[in-house]
C-alpha cells in the first residue's frame, strides 16, 4: 500500500474512533451528561435550600406566635382570675374586664359554666385540650381549625375556679409563610435555570477540545498531515492535545519516510536503467548480426527494459504526488486538438478521435503534458486488457445545461469490461481485481490508472469506468474535466 493510502487509512481509523465516541459519549452524550448533572445538581440544591429555609421560617414564626400568645394568654388569665376572686365574682365581670383589655376571642369556664358561644365558643375547643386543662390542671395549647381558619387555642387552668381559654388567629402567619414559600419557589426556579445555562455553557466548553480534535483528525484524513492541535495550559486537555499531536507527528514521519523511500528507490534505479537502456539500444542496432535465439532474448530484454523504465517513471511521478511536489503548468487547451495530439504521440497514433456537439469548441485549462499522459495511459490500458484498437471520443459533459460546463473524454475498448464491484478499486495503486486473469496481463504494472486518477483529480476533474455505451462487452473509461466555450 502506498504512503498516501496508509495516511488515509490510518487517519480515517482515528476519525472513525472519534466519531464512534462522539456518537456514544462525546458529541451529544458528554454534552447531555454535563447538562444533566448541572441541571439535577442545581435543582437539588435549590430545592434543599428552599425547603430548609421554609422550614426555618415556619418554625420561627410559629415559635414567635406561640410565645407571644402564651404571654398574652397568661396575662389575660391573670386578669380573669383577679376578676373572679373579687366581689362579686361573676363571669360577666371577668368578660367585661377582658373586653376592656381588648381581648378578642376568650372563653371562660367558671363554676361548671362556659362563657362565650358561637364560632369561637367552647364548642370549638378540642376535647383533649379541655381535659388537660380542666382535669389535669396543666396549661396547654393546640393548633386547630375553626371553619377554614387556623387558630392556636391556649388553655390555662384557674385553680379552684375553672379555666381560661383563648383563640389566637394564625392567618397572618400563614399568609406570611405562603409569601415566603412563593418567593422561595421562584428563587429555586431561577437558580435551576441558571444552573441549566451554566451546564450548557460548561458542556460546550467541555466538548470544544474534542470537536477540535475531530476536526484536526478530519483534516489529517484529508491529506493535511501537518495539522496539529493548539497547545493548552489545561493539564487534562494537554494530555489529549499532546498525544494527538504525537500521533499526528508519528504518522507524518512514517508517511514521509515511506514516500522518501519510494522516491529514493526510484532514483537509485534510474542509473542502472540508463546503462541498461543505452546498452540494449546498442545491441538492437546490431540485432541482425545475432543468432536467432539471441535475437529473441534481446527482444525480450529490450521490451522489459522499456517496461521497467515506464514503471520507474510512474513510481517517480507518484512519489512526487505523495510529496506534494507536483506543480501544474496550466494553459488553455482546445480539447479536440489536445486529444488528437495526445493520441498521435500515444502507442496507437492511428485511432480517430470523434467529437460530439459543443465539445468540438470546448476549451479546458490544464497541463498538456500531464493530461497527455492520462490519455496515453488510458489507451495503453485499453490495449493491454481491451483486445483490439480502442476508440476515443470527446463529448459534452452536461448537454442539458444552457452553457458548456464539462467535457468528457472517453476511451472504449472491446475487452471483457470491469465488474461493478471492481470499478472503484481499479484506480488504486497496483490494484489487481478478482478478475485478475482477465484484466492484468503481462503489462499489468497497475500504476497507470492510479496516475490517471491523481492527475485528473489534480485538475479538479474525475475519472470513472463504465460499460460501453453500445451495450457490447467492453469497458468505457471516462475523464470529466471542467470546460468553457470561447465566445
Amino acid at each position: 500500500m502506498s504512503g498516501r493510502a496508509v495516511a488515509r487509512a490510518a487517519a480515517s481509523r482515528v476519525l472513525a474512533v472519534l466519531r464512534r465516541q462522539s456518537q456514544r459519549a462525546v458529541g451529544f452524550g458528554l454534552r447531555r451528561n454535563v447538562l444533566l448533572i448541572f441541571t439535577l445538581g442545581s435543582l437539588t440544591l435549590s430545592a434543599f435550600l428552599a425547603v430548609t429555609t421554609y422550614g426555618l421560617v415556619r418554625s420561627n414564626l410559629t415559635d414567635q406566635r406561640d410565645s407571644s400568645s402564651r404571654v398574652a394568654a397568661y396575662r389575660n388569665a391573670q386578669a380573669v382570675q383577679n376578676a373572679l376572686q373579687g366581689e362579686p365574682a361573676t363571669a360577666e365581670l371577668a368578660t367585661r374586664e377582658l373586653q376592656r383589655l381588648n381581648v378578642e376571642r376568650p372563653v371562660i369556664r367558671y363554676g361548671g359554666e362556659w362563657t362565650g358561644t358561637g364560632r369561637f365558643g367552647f364548642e370549638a375547643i378540642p376535647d383533649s385540650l379541655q381535659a388537660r386543662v380542666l382535669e389535669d390542671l396543666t396549661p396547654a395549647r393546640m393548633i386547630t381549625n375553626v371553619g377554614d381558619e387556623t387558630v392556636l387555642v391556649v388553655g390555662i387552668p384557674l385553680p379552684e375556679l375553672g379555666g381560661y381559654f383563648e383563640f389566637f388567629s394564625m392567618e397572618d402567619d400563614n399568609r406570611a409563610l405562603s409569601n415566603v414559600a412563593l418567593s422561595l419557589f421562584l428563587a429555586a426556579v431561577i437558580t435551576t435555570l441558571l444552573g441549566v445555562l451554566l451546564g450548557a455553557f460548561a458542556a460546550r466548553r467541555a466538548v470544544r477540545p474534542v470537536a477540535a480534535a475531530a476536526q484536526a483528525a478530519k483534516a489529517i484524513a484529508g491529506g493535511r498531515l501537518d495539522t496539529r492541535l493548539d497547545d493548552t495550559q489545561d493539564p487534562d486537555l494537554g494530555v489529549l492535545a499532546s498525544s494527538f499531536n504525537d500521533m499526528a507527528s508519528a504518522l507524518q514521519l512514517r508517511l514521509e519516510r515511506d514516500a522518501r523511500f519510494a522516491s529514493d528507490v526510484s532514483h537509485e534505479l534510474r542509473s542502472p536503467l540508463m546503462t541498461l537502456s543505452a546498452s540494449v539500444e546498442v545491441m538492437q542496432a546490431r540485432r541482425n548480426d545475432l543468432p536467432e535465439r539471441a535475437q529473441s532474448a534481446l527482444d525480450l530484454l529490450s521490451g522489459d527494459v522499456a517496461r521497467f523504465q515506464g514503471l520507474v517513471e510512474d513510481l517517480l511521478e507518484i512519489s512526487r504526488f505523495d510529496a506534494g511536489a507536483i506543480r501544474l503548468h496550466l494553459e488553455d487547451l482546445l480539447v479536440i486538438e489536445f486529444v488528437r495530439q495526445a493520441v498521435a504521440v500515444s502507442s496507437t497514433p492511428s485511432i480517430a478521435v470523434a467529437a460530439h456537439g459543443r465539445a468540438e469548441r470546448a476549451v479546458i485549462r490544464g497541463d498538456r503534458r500531464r493530461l497527455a499522459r492520462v490519455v496515453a495511459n488510458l489507451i495503453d490500458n485499453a490495449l493491454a486488457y481491451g483486445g483490439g484498437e480502442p476508440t476515443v471520443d470527446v463529448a459534452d459533459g452536461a448537454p442539458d445545461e444552457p452553457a458548456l460546463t464539462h467535457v468528457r473524454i472517453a476511451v472504449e475498448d472491446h475487452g471483457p469490461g470491469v465488474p461493478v464491484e471492481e470499478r472503484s478499486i481499479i484506480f488504486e495503486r497496483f490494484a489487481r481485481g478478482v478478475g485478475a486473469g482477465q484484466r492484468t496481463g503481462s503489462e499489468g504494472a497497475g500504476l497507470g490508472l492510479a496516475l490517471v486518477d491523481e492527475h485528473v483529480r489534480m485538475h479538479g476533474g474525475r475519472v470513472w469506468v463504465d460499460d460501453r455505451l453500445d451495450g457490447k462487452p467492453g469497458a468505457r473509461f471516462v475523464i470529466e474535466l471542467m470546460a468553457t466555450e470561447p465566445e
Partner: protein
Amino acid sequence: MGTRILAVEDDERIRTAVKLALEDEGWTVEEAASGEEAVTLFARQPPDVVLIDIMLPGIDGFDLCRTLRRTSDVPIVMVTARNDTHDVVAGLEAGADDYLTKPFAPKELSARIRALLRRVRPSAPGRERLVFGDLELIPEAGKVLRDSTEVHLTKTEFRLLCELAENPGKVLSREALLDKVWGYDYFGDGRLVDVHIRRLRTKIEADPAAPRHVVTVRGLGYRLET
C-alpha cells in the same frame, strides 16, 4: 573530423553506455567524469555539443554550464535528476539549450542532439540585414547589433530571434517556436521557450522588465515588434 560530443557524467557505466549508443550515430564522444576534467577537455578542443549531468562531484552541472557559457555559445544539453521546475529552470537559466530527465532513451538524446546541431546552421531568413529600431540582425554572419554594438547570443537564442524576425509583427505560439527552434511536437516543454525568451531579452532589450522588441502576448505567445 565529424561531430564531437563531450559527455560529462560521473557514473562510469552510464557514460560508457551512452558513449556506445552515441557512437552508433556516427559521432565522436569524449568523456569527462567531473566538471574540472570537462573544463580542461573543453579548453583543449571545443566540442560541437556538451552533455552535462547536473549531479556532479566538485563543481556541479549548473556551475559548469555557467563556466562554459562565459566563453562559448556551444549547444548544451542538461541531464536533470528530477523533472521539477527548480532543476529544469535553473539548468536553462544557467545557459543550457535543452534538457532531458533521467532515465531517458538514448534515441531521445540523439534526437535532441540532432535538433541542436541543425540549429547551429540556421536556415537564413534570406535577407542580408533586418532592422528593428535600435536592433540590427545580420543572419548570414550570425550577428546581432544593438545600437551598432555587437550582442553575443547563443546559437539557440539567435535561432529564436531569427524565427521571430522571419514573421515580424506576427504572434508565434510556444508550440510553433518549440517546433521550429527545438524540433519538439505539441508536447514540448513551454518553459524552454519562456526561459530562452527571458535570456534573449536581457541581451537585446534596453529594459528587460519592459521589453520593446520581444513582446509577450498573453495566452498566445510572443511577437517581435516592427
